[in-house]
């Protein structure tokens, strides 16, 4: 037997922290069609697979880059930070989860708010970060939405929320539940001020987020194939004890059932938003 295939050096191992995972590395494999692309290519395609159109999950930083005119946005309310008021501890204390998530993401919490320009028009955007504890909705998410609404009213600007969340943050218990009430209540003030509210749902938008601000837009829009629903698919499957149909709770399903106004691909997002905002805000004689 040829010695070619013989491992001469024993025990070659790479420590976990040295292993590179896409998209941090050079290559990215599409989770849908397994096509590979360089990370740079992926970035140029706005994190959408050039072959199958799969929209990879991105966070506020990337969405702000896509939506806002370059350098026009200002981050707002960055001082608002989560606190473990209940002393909640499951397999890990919530206080530690917060610190770990902040270290891993460089973010304060699962919500980032910015005001800026989109093709020269004003817009306030509150964008969820799925990488921060599953984009879960806690007090900070609610407070930042609340202040974002106040800011939009004060400056007479349109308001948009980009949802990307597994739902309520259990570690904040009833406080997280009440963020549904808080955000919905505040949206009535925006409504009375006759300022537009655009709800943009991305993969995934579930639980208490769906059952509050995500479904309350003057227009509700979504990215293609995003999971959008109240109950999670696993829970529904366990409840009804049968398989769920293909495409169940995806954007296209919601559009078909009348809960979305339109689905927009990432590459068209800025233009579609700009046209829509113009319709809402254009001064007429």
């Amino acid at each position, binding site marked *: 037997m040829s010695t070619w295939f013989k491992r001469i050096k024993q025990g070659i191992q790479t420590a976990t922290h040295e292993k590179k995972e896409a998209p941090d590395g050079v290559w990215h494999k599409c989770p849908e069609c397994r096509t590979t692309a360089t990370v740079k290519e992926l970035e140029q395609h706005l994190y959408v697979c050039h072959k199958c159109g799969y929209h990879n999950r991105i966070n506020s930083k990337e969405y702000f880059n896509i939506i806002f005119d370059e350098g026009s946005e200002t981050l707002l309310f960055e001082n*608002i930070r989560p606190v473990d008021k209940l002393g909640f501890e*499951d397999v890990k204390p919530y206080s530690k989860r917060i610190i770990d998530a902040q270290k891993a993401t460089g973010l304060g919490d699962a919500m980032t708010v910015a005001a800026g320009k989109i093709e020269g028009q004003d817009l306030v955007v509150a964008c969820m970060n799925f990488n921060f504890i599953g984009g879960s909705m806690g007090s900070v998410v609610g407070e930042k939405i609340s202040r974002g609404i106040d800011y939009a009213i004060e400056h007479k600007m349109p308001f948009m929320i980009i949802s990307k969340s597994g739902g309520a943050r259990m570690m904040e218990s*009833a406080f997280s539940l*009440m963020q549904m009430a808080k955000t919905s209540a505040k949206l*009535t003030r925006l409504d009375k001020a006759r300022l537009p509210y655009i709800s943009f749902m991305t993969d995934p938008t579930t639980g208490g987020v769906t059952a509050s601000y995500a479904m309350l837009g003057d227009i509700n829009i979504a990215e293609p194939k995003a999971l959008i629903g109240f109950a999670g698919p696993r829970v*529904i499957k366990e409840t009804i004890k049968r398989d769920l149909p293909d495409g169940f709770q995806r954007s296209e399903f919601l559009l078909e059932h009348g809960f979305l106004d339109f689905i927009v691909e990432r590459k068209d997002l800025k233009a579609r938003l700009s046209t829509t905002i113009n319709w809402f805000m254009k001064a007429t004689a």
Partner: protein
Amino acid sequence: MQFLDFEKPLEELFHQMDKLKEVHAKNDKVDVSNAIKELEDSIEITRAKVYEHLTPWQRVQLSRHPERPYTLFYISRLFNNFVEIFGDRQVKDDKAMVGGMAEIDGIPVMVLGQQKGTNTKSRQMRNFGMANPEGYRKALRMMKLAEKFNRPIITLIDTPGAYPGLEAEERGQGEAIARNLFEMTNLKVPVICIIIGEGASGGALGIGIGDKVAMLENTWYTVISPESCSSILWHNWENKEKAAEQLKLTSTDMKGFGLVDDVIPEPLGGAHAKPDEMATILKQYILGALKELTPINADKRINQRIDKFSKMGFYEDQVAHS
């Protein structure tokens, strides 16, 4: 009577009581009145002991007690001239959500809430108190009707959650609840919401935006049931008691956090032990709340409602806003 695991000492006493009465029924010459009196006393003493220090999980159990009074019981005891109304005018009538026009002490009001069943058949018919989207839309229709005729609204909350079904998703469970949160905020009439049993998450909140939100003493209200919380965070069902503690879901906790306005005391032994007494206490609370809320100007009441919910949450604001 049915007894929960921690009520075992009571079960024994009630058992003795039954036996005594049996003896008396067979032979009424045997005088058992003294024995009965003694037993009654020790039942009250034992009850006080059993109920003195309830754990959060025991309160969850009490909130689900099979003999606990449900919405229609309270409607029958507290209100007169109840006219039940049905349907959401779109899809169907949701039997998990009931309500209608009624009077309380001569005041016309709209009363509604989730309804659980009392036996296997009616539990299924009521879908265990889990409403579908049409239930929330039925509730909203009743509330808008009340608003049109300037009638205060009373909601009685008792649900293990909004129904997580396939059709529920097709018909927009999330949208239905969200719409209620938004519309209830804007109602021009007084809204009083009372958790009478289980207050599980969005399914409870969907009829829970009020000027007064109160909890009966032995109820719970939070974002998830202790069982589901245990299953998600600990990956098993064994930590439900721990989850109940961690979630701080009792009426006392919720009042302490300022997330509900009031706690309504239950008779010793819980609402199911003395349902009529419970009904009287609840009626007094509702009448008091109506008296307080009705004179307030509608716009002011709405603003107070928005401000109340807007204040809910905890966070740190590291640098004071200029």
